[in-house]
Structure formats: C-alpha cells, structure tokens
C-alpha cells in the first residue's frame, strides 16, 4: 500500500547516530534474564498457539506484523526485534507509523516489566493512535451475541462482537457506541462456497471497528436476530490495553477457520490482552462455539441486556392486536387495503396507531426480505407512517419480554451419553459423543426454539450376547421447526447425513441422506405439531441396486408438559421409488428429563417395518453435558 518499506539495514543506518546502543543491549539482556519471551502475556500479544505438530507459532499471518524475520515462529527473536525497533523513529510500512505507535500494547507491557528509562529510550508521540483512542474513549465494554435467526439453526453457531461505549453513550443512546468485529474477508455471497472455504481455512480474518448502529441494523433488522449484550468488568487500564492491542491488530490478517479460529475465538484472544486472567485451556482446539465463549467470559460479565429483533417485536406487538385488527394490519401491509380504509378510520386512535405500527413493520420486513420492490414499498410505507403520525398517539406497545434464560446459561454444547437398550431381543450397550450442539429433546432454555443442529454424533457399542461391535456416525442433523402464525408463515425444513447399520440383509452400514420441507403449528413453550414431505436416499450393498430412494410424509409433535421434560413423537411412511426397493414405516418416541443442569435421562422407543421385517427398539441413555 505504501511506497516505502523500511528495511532493517536502512533503519539501522539512519538510526545509528541516535540509538543508545548500550541501553538497547541492556534491555535485551534484561528481557532474556526475565525470560519475558516465555511469558504467557507475550504469547497472548503475538497470538501464539501450539499447532497440531506441537510447534508454537502465531496465528497472525501478515508478515509485516512481525518485526523479526522468524517472528511468527520464534517469540524470543520477535521480542529482541521489538525492543530494537522501539529505538527507531521511522514510519514502518504498511502502517506508516513508528514501531512504538503500532505496537502500543507490547510497548506498555515491556515498559512495565523492564522499566524503560525515558531519557535513554525516548517515548515517541503517536498522534494518529491518540486521536483514534480519544474518539473511541470507551467507558464501558460489552460482549454482544446475536442469537440464531428464525428458521436458520446453523446461525446458532453465530457470532460475537464487542461494543465499546464512548463518552457520547448515555442512557438510551447505545446506538452511538462502536462495534469491534472480527470477520473473514470475503465478497462471497454464495453461502455454500462460503461455508466450504470457511471450514478449510480458505479465508483470512481481521478486526474492524465500525459504528455499533451498523451492527444493530444488520442483526436486529436485516437478519432479525435478537441481540444479547453482556457488560464486561474492565477497569481503565485494562480497557486501555484492549485498545492498544486492537490498534496493533489493525489490518493484521489471521488464518480463519469457521469452527476454530473464528470471530468468537479471536475476540477472546483480544480480551485476553486486557484480562490475562481470562483462560480457556484447550477448550477451543476443535471448535469455538460463540455461546461457549460467553461462558468463558461469564466471570467478567454482568447481567445481559436484551435487544429484541424486528421479527421478535412484530410477533410480540401482534399479540397486542385483536384478530380482526391483525387481519387489517396484514391487509394494509399487503396493499389490499389503503390507509384511508373505513375499517381503519372507524377504529379509536390508540387501536389505529397499533394497527398501523404493525402493518408498517410487516411491510418493512417484506421489503428487507426482498419480497417487495422499493417502488412499491416506499410509497406504501410513507402512507402508513403518515397515517400513524396523524393519530398523534405516542408509542402504544408493550416491549417484548426478555427470555428467562440468557444464551450463556443454556446447557453445555458437548454431550456424552452412556446407553443401554434392546433391538428386538438383543441387548446392547453404547457410548455416544456429540461434540455440538443442541437437539429438540435437549433442554431448550437459553437456545432458540425449534432449532436443532447436531454435529458429528458418534456412537460405539457392543451386543454382549453376540460380541458384535456396533457403530453409528451422524455427520450432520439439522431440523428447523418454525411454527406458522397469524403473522409469519415460515417453511420448516430438515436435513440429515449419517452412516448407520442397516436392519436388513447382512446388517451392513448404510449411508443416508434425508430431509425435506415442512409446515408446523403451535407454540414451542407447549405443543407443536409438524408435517414434512420427507425424502431419504440410502446406499447399501445389500439393496437391489446398491442404493434406494424413498419419499413420503413424516408427521410429528413436540410437547413440553413442564419445565425439564420434553417429548417428541414422529411417524413416517416412506415408499421406495424403486420397484425392488424397501418401503419404510417407523414410529419413534423420545423423551428427556433434566436431572441437573448438566445431567439428563433420555428414553427412546421405536418400531420400524421394512420389507415385511419388524424391528422394535428401546434405549435408555444417561447424558452428561460438558
């Protein structure tokens, strides 16, 4: 970006006259004597991690971020080079600032540990950084978690960001805060390509700072995700360190991995610069789920604020209308009725204001979803808002209540189970591990209703009588049960990819891909019924052609008789598309009782008929969440 690049040689040459070489050597020796390069805090500032092969290296990949040629792999030479660079005054490319100004967190920490003598190592002025820090000037720092959005279980993996409240932010003006965001750099709009590259490390991520209202707009309105904002306990010095380190990180690229080196993980590493006591051990080596990182920051965070999304508000506001009023609001939003409609003008002002408020929100939501073009929505929106303003009624809605359980208080995302059961007459015992995340029988508190995502559910077991080993592997199992209401009409959907033992032929392992669209009705807090058009593709050598496809209805219900007890009943009728294929019918009932926050009992019973063979199965599982 910048035309000049300071080489080590030219820097040394131009500095030779002014650098206090003796003091530099003294500091280098003192740092070595104190073994500062091995200090965990130095490793934090460099973002050093131990790779799978056991070699420590920084996960930052921008060459310029390291002052030593081997700085990415060698914390000692990076420390030496950093101390040496602090004696230089030239602006470094590409940041166009001297090292003292770029590496403010390194400077402050080393200064604290080594007691820099300002007469021998003069402190340089850093106007750009000062100006930036003064503009942000955070009085309070928050961790913000956008919850999953309706009908998209994958978004539960979600995101976390920081909110910095400057002096401008007072009661009710949180929108004037700034957001600190870590994200992959991409122009990819194809979600599948994004996911594939994100999983395999095809992207680089970096930090950015932007107005918080941009993030609120993105999450609350465009994506309709509720936001949870957790205030953090950081004192002034810690907040300063956070900012200094963030400035160091400006423009630094990191390896980005969707599951591990993601936004939530990097946010933790940033916070660790402010709070070195923030520790997580090896927990995030394999996956860093945002809600898990909220548990890591929980010791420093207070009671969260809840910011309901546009959809949450619409749904709640709609409950404050009578059924005819809600129908009228929808007709106004759809353009079937106009703002001067008699049905509307006949209403008292308060009711009119509520109807117009909901109708405009519905219209706006349709616009954001791309259902309505701007040429249609803008004039209609202005007419509705003008009529709304003319009522002279201020406000008029009760805000949506905060869910009783915040996302950091939900069950842990890893689940281990010891199972005992019978398949027909054969007893079996199994051990099961599901690394992530949540299914519809798990305790729903703290999670988004009706959204299931199981990753890599693995089970091994044995039939004691026959000595036969059993194994199952489920790669992914996503279900979204989104009930339809008077306001929203979502399509539920599910998809599952698994390998499991066939109960026909020689009992070989089948590869299964199944799923389909569906509709559901009801309330998750009580009872929800659903129906899917369900398709299943199966590959197995014992099938006539080696593979088979079946399709048919799947019906089910979810019931929460009381807190801590969930039931799920499902039945399916799948007819094979192949004349020689195997039709499938099954009924399954699952229920779960929560014994403690982290312990539950699950009972599954089911019956299946396939090509004339009946099998019945019952399994009792003791589950531990960790």
């Amino acid at each position, binding site marked *: 970006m910048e035309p000049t690049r300071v080489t080590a040689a030219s820097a040394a040459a131009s500095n030779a006259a002014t650098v206090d070489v003796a003091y530099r050597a003294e500091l280098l020796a003192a740092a070595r004597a104190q073994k500062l390069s091995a200090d965990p805090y130095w490793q934090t500032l460099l973002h050093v991690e131990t790779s799978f092969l056991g070699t420590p290296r920084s996960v930052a990949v921008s060459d310029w971020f390291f002052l030593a040629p081997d700085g990415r792999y060698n914390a000692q030479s990076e420390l030496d080079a950093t101390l040496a660079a602090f004696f230089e005054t030239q602006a470094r490319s590409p940041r166009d600032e001297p090292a003292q100004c770029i590496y403010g967190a390194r400077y402050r920490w080393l200064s604290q540990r080594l007691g820099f003598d300002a007469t021998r190592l003069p402190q340089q002025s850093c106007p750009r950084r000062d100006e930036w820090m003064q503009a942000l000037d955070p009085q309070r720092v928050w961790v913000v978690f956008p919850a999953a959005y309706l009908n998209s279980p994958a978004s539960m993996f979600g995101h976390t960001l920081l909110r910095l409240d400057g002096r401008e932010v007072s009661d009710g003006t949180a929108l*004037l805060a700034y957001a600190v965001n870590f994200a992959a750099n991409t122009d990819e*709009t194809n979600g599948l390509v994004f996911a594939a590259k994100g999983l395999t490390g095809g992207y680089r991520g970096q930090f950015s700072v932007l107005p918080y209202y941009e993030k609120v707009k993105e999450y609350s309105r465009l994506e309709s995700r509720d936001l949870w904002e957790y205030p953090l306990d950081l004192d002034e010095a810690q907040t300063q360190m956070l900012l200094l380190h963030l400035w160091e990180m400006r423009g630094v690229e990191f390896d980005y991995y969707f599951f591990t080196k993601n936004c939530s993980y990097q946010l933790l590493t940033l916070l660790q610069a402010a709070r070195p006591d923030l520790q997580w051990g090896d927990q995030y080596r394999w996956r860093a789920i945002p809600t898990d990182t909220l548990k890591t920051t929980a010791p420093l965070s207070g009671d969260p604020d809840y910011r309901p999304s546009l959809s949450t508000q619409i749904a709640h506001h709609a409950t404050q209308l009578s059924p005819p009023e809600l129908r009228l609001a929808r007709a106004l939003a759809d353009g079937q009725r106009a703002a001067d409609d008699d049905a509307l003008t006949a209403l008292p002002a308060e009711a009119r204001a509520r109807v117009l408020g909901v109708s405009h929100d519905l219209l706006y939501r349709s616009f954001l979803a791309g259902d309505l073009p701007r040429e249609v929505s803008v004039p209609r929106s202005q007419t509705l808002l003008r009529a709304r303003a003319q009522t002279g009624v201020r406000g008029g809605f009760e805000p949506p209540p905060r869910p009783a359980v915040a996302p950091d208080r939900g069950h842990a995302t890893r689940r281990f189970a010891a199972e005992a059961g019978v398949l027909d007459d054969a007893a079996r015992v199994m051990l099961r591990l599901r690394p992530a995340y949540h299914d519809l029988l798990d305790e729903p508190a703290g999670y988004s209703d009706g959204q299931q995502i199981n990753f890599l559910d693995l089970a091994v077991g044995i039939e004691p009588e026959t000595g036969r080993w059993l194994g199952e592997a489920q790669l992914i199992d996503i279900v979204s049960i989104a009930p339809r209401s008077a306001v929203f009409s979502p399509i539920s959907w599910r998809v599952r990819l698994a390998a499991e033992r066939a109960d026909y032929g020689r009992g070989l392992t089948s590869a299964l891909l199944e799923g389909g669209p569906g509709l559901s009705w009801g309330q998750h807090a009580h009872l929800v019924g659903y129906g899917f058009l369900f398709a299943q593709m199966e590959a197995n050598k014992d099938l006539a052609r080696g593979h088979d496809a079946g399709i048919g209805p799947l019906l089910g219900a979810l019931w929460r008789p009381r807190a801590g007890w969930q039931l799920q009943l499902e039945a399916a009728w799948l007819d094979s598309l192949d004349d020689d294929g195997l039709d499938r019918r099954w009924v399954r009932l699952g229920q779960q009782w929560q014994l403690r926050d982290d312990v539950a009992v699950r009972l599954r019973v089911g019956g299946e008929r396939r090509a004339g063979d009946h099998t019945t199965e019952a399994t009792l599982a003791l589950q531990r969440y960790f």
Partner: protein
Amino acid sequence: MKKTILAAALVAMMPFGAALADSDIGCGLGTQVMKGQKGKVFKVLGATTNGTFGNQTFGITSGTLGCDGDGVVASKARRSMFASANIDQLSAEMAAGEGETLTTLASLYQIDAADREAFFALAQAQHAALFATVDATTGDVLSALEVAMAQDARLSRYVA
C-alpha cells in the same frame, strides 16, 4: 465477474476500506429510505455472518470522525451520518413519536432530557412535512426537521 474483481481490488487498495455497505454521498445526506436489502438468498444461505462483505473498516472512515476525514469530530457530520444510516428506523420512530433511534438523534442535537418529549412530539406532528416525497433524502429530512425546530419555542435553541 471482472467488475467484481475490479471492485474488490479497489476496496482492498483503499486504506481500511472507505467502502460502506451503502455507498453514501458525502456525509450520507443523499441516502433515501429503504435502500438496504439483502434479499432471500442471503436469508436462506447466510448461515453465518462470520464473513463480511468487503467493508472492513477501522472506525476512521465510517463515523468516528467527520466525513471530511480531517480529524475533527464534527457533530453535524455525525448527525447526518447517523440519520442517513438509520433513516428507515427514524421515519418509523418519528411516526410513533418514540424509540431508541429518535432518542439518539435527540442526543446528537444535544437536546436536554426536559425537552426530549417536545422533540418527539414535533417529529411526529411534522412527519408529513419531513418525509414530503418518496425520494426525500436524509438531507431533506434533516433540513425540514431543523426548520421546524427553529420555529418551535422550546427547540429553536438547539439549531441556533
């Protein structure tokens, strides 16, 4: 495709990407209501927003400082940038006479707590005048708002 690559290259070359999600004119005064839309495909496939679409900034170009970038925090610029970015929400909240975005705009005008109710009531009463046409820009809306404030006994001092 070529265009996209070119655009991406341009964004990458800009120091900390001056690119905003909506490309505003100047301080954003050109923004009209209902400009931003991500569309259905995004909703369905956008499983995660861990990715960002070419707008990585560092608070330098997008709102920390005035849009002229000279380092002076100009409150007028801040106001217009905020209003521009939130014009849809402002329009809805002005019609309802309350809301967080409207409260924030009041604070950007440095309106005392005691006068906020008057400001909210004025915004609601003047909604038709503020959003007079379908293509009214943020600049039009704020000018009309300031004209109305100037004529209001309690609020005139905030635009003096």
